[in-house]
C-alpha cells in the first residue's frame, strides 16, 4: 500500500462574499453561499470550474456540479456533520493519490442564521426519526433533549468530574477565541461594535453569561451564522502551476465512535484519538511537531477534549495549552483557532470548512490580507493540525498540513 502523504496540496481557500448574522432582509441561501465561495476560490487560484474533476460537499454535490456545468469524474456527498470537510480532504487526497482525478473541489454553504430567522426555532421532539435509531424512543426529545448544547454539556460535566478541570479552564478557550477574533475583521464577534458580546472578553464574562445548559454558559457556545467556504485540492504534479502557493496534505485520517451520544463510551474522549493517529502516521510526524491548531470549537468543551485526544495535551490537561492566553495572539504556546473559531468568527451549523480556509491562509502566509486578518493574525507556523468534530462529539476528521518549502 502506498502512502498518499504529500500526493496532493490545497492551492486555494475562500469564503462566500459575506458571512455572519442576517446579511439582508431576505437572508442567504445554501446555493448562494456555496457558489460565491467556489467562484472566489477559482478566481484566487486562476482556474475555471470546468477544470474541476472531483466535487466534494456535505450532501450538496449534484446541485453544485449542475449549477456550474461541472461534469465530474468523482462525486462525494459525505455528510457526517461539521467534520465532513476534513473527511472530504482525506477522500480527495485518496482519489488523487490513486490517480483517479487531479483537481478536486470541497465546498460548503449553509444559511444557518437565515434558516433560523425564516422558519422559526427548532421544535425538538422526534422529527421523523428512524424507529430503529435510539432517537425515536430512547434519547433526545422525549427525554428533554434539544439542539446541540444539551448533549455537549454532559461531556463537560464528565470532564469536570473525571479530570478535575474547572469552568474557568474551559472559559479561557472562549477568551482566546475572542482575542483572535479582534484580529479578524470578518469575525461576528470582532469587537463591541460588531456585537455587544464582541471581543475582547474575560473569563468572568464567560462565567457571568447566561446559562444555556449547565455547565455550558452562552459564551461557551458557538455562533449560528450564515457562511460559505471552498478549497481547491490538486495533485502534486499540478501544485505549482497556479497563482497561489500550495499547502501540502501530509497526513489525513477519519474515524467515529458513535452517532448518538448515548453510545459514547467515555464522554471525555472522541475518535480524534484514532483519526489523529492515522493522520500522524501518514505524515510521519507527531503532536510535538504541530505549530498551529485548527480545532473545531462548537463549544469550549469540544476543544478541550479534542486537543487531549490528539495528544497535544495530556488526558485531563487541555488547560496547559490555553492558560494565561498561551494559545492567543502573541501567546507563548501553540496558536489555536486563529480566525476566532466557531465561538467568535462564524459557525453556520457545520463549521469544519472554516478550519480548512484558515489553515490554508496561515500556512500560505496570507492570513493578514486586511480583509480576513489584520496585523498580528499571521503566525509563523509551518505545520498545522486540523481537526473537525461532527454530530455529538461523534465523527472526526484530522489533517496534518505543511507549508510549501
Amino acid at each position: 500500500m502506498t502512502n498518499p502523504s504529500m500526493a496532493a496540496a490545497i492551492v486555494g481557500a475562500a469564503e462566500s462574499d459575506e458571512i455572519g448574522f442576517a446579511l439582508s432582509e431576505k437572508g442567504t441561501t445554501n446555493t448562494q453561499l456555496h457558489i460565491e465561495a467556489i467562484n472566489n476560490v477559482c478566481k484566487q487560484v486562476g482556474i475555471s470550474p470546468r477544470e474541476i474533476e472531483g466535487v466534494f460537499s456535505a450532501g450538496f454535490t449534484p446541485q453544485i456540479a449542475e449549477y456550474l456545468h461541472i461534469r465530474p469524474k468523482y462525486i462525494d456527498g459525505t455528510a457526517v456533520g461539521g467534520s465532513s470537510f476534513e473527511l472530504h480532504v482525506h477522500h480527495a487526497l485518496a482519489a488523487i493519490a490513486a490517480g483517479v482525478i487531479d483537481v478536486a473541489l470541497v465546498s460548503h454553504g449553509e444559511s444557518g442564521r437565515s434558516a433560523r430567522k425564516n422558519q422559526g426555532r427548532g421544535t425538538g421532539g422526534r422529527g421523523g426519526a428512524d424507529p430503529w435509531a435510539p432517537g425515536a424512543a430512547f434519547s433526545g426529545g422525549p427525554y428533554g433533549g434539544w439542539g446541540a448544547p444539551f448533549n455537549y454539556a454532559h461531556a463537560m460535566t464528565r470532564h469536570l468530574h473525571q479530570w478535575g478541570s474547572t469552568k474557568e479552564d474551559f472559559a479561557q478557550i472562549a477568551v482566546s477565541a475572542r482575542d483572535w477574533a479582534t484580529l479578524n475583521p470578518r469575525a461576528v464577534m470582532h469587537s463591541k461594535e460588531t456585537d455587544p458580546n464582541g471581543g475582547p472578553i474575560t473569563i468572568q464574562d464567560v462565567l457571568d453569561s447566561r446559562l444555556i445548559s449547565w455547565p455550558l454558559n452562552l459564551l461557551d457556545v458557538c455562533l449560528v451564522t450564515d457562511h460559505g467556504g471552498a478549497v481547491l485540492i490538486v495533485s502534486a504534479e499540478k501544485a505549482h502551476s497556479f497563482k497561489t502557493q500550495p499547502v501540502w496534505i501530509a497526513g489525513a485520517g477519519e474515524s467515529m465512535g458513535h452517532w448518538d451520544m448515548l453510545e459514547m463510551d467515555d464522554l471525555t474522549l472522541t475518535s480524534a484519538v484514532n483519526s489523529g493517529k492515522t493522520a500522524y502516521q501518514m505524515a510521519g510526524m507527531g503532536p510535538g511537531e504541530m505549530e498551529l491548531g485548527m480545532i473545531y470549537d462548537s463549544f469550549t468543551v469540544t476543544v478541550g477534549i479534542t486537543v487531549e485526544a490528539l495528544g497535544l495535551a495530556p488526558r485531563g490537561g487541555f488547560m496547559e495549552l490555553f492558560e494565561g492566553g498561551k494559545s492567543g495572539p502573541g501567546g507563548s504556546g501553540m496558536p489555536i483557532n486563529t480566525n476566532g473559531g466557531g465561538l467568535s468568527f462564524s459557525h453556520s451549523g457545520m463549521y469544519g470548512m472554516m478550519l480548512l480556509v484558515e489553515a490554508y491562509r496561515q500556512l500560505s502566509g496570507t492570513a493578514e490580507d486586511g480583509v480576513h486578518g489584520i496585523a498580528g493574525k499571521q503566525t509563523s507556523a509551518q505545520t498545522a493540525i486540523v481537526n473537525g468534530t461532527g454530530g455529538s462529539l461523534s465523527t472526526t476528521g484530522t489533517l496534518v498540513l505543511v507549508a510549501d518549502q
Partner: protein
Amino acid sequence: MTDYNKPIPDPDPYTSGPFWEGAKEGKLMLPRCEDCNRVHWYPRILCPFCYSRSISWFEASGEGTLYSFAVQQRAFAPGWAEEGPYVTCFIDLNEGDRMFGVLLDVDVSKPEDIFAKIGSKVSIEFVKANDDVHVPYWKLAS
C-alpha cells in the same frame, strides 16, 4: 388519558416491545445476548458485541449510577419548554451499558450539589404517558 405533556417516545414493538410491556408494570426490562451474555442498550435485533441474533429479555434491577448530567435551562419541545430548568442524565446500569433520561427531584438551582452525586446510586421510575407508553425517569437513591 393522562395529563402527560412531554413528547412521548414512539416505541418500536419489533426491537423493543418487552421494554415497553415491562414499563407498564414498573419493571426495567433489558436485552441480553444469549451467546456472549452481555447486556446492550439501546435495543437492537442483534448483539452489537458478538452479532448474535439470539437476544432475550430479563427483568433488571432498575438501578444504576449517575455517569453525567446537565441542567437544561431552556428547551423548545412542548412540555419541556414550559418545564423550566430540568436535569438530563446518563445512567450506567448495574447490569451494563448506559441509558439517557431525566433525573427527577433534584435542586436545579444547585448544580454543584448534583455534581457531587456523580457516581451515586439511582433508580428508575416509570411515568405513565398513555395506556401504551410509560416513560422511564431516574431518581437519586435516598
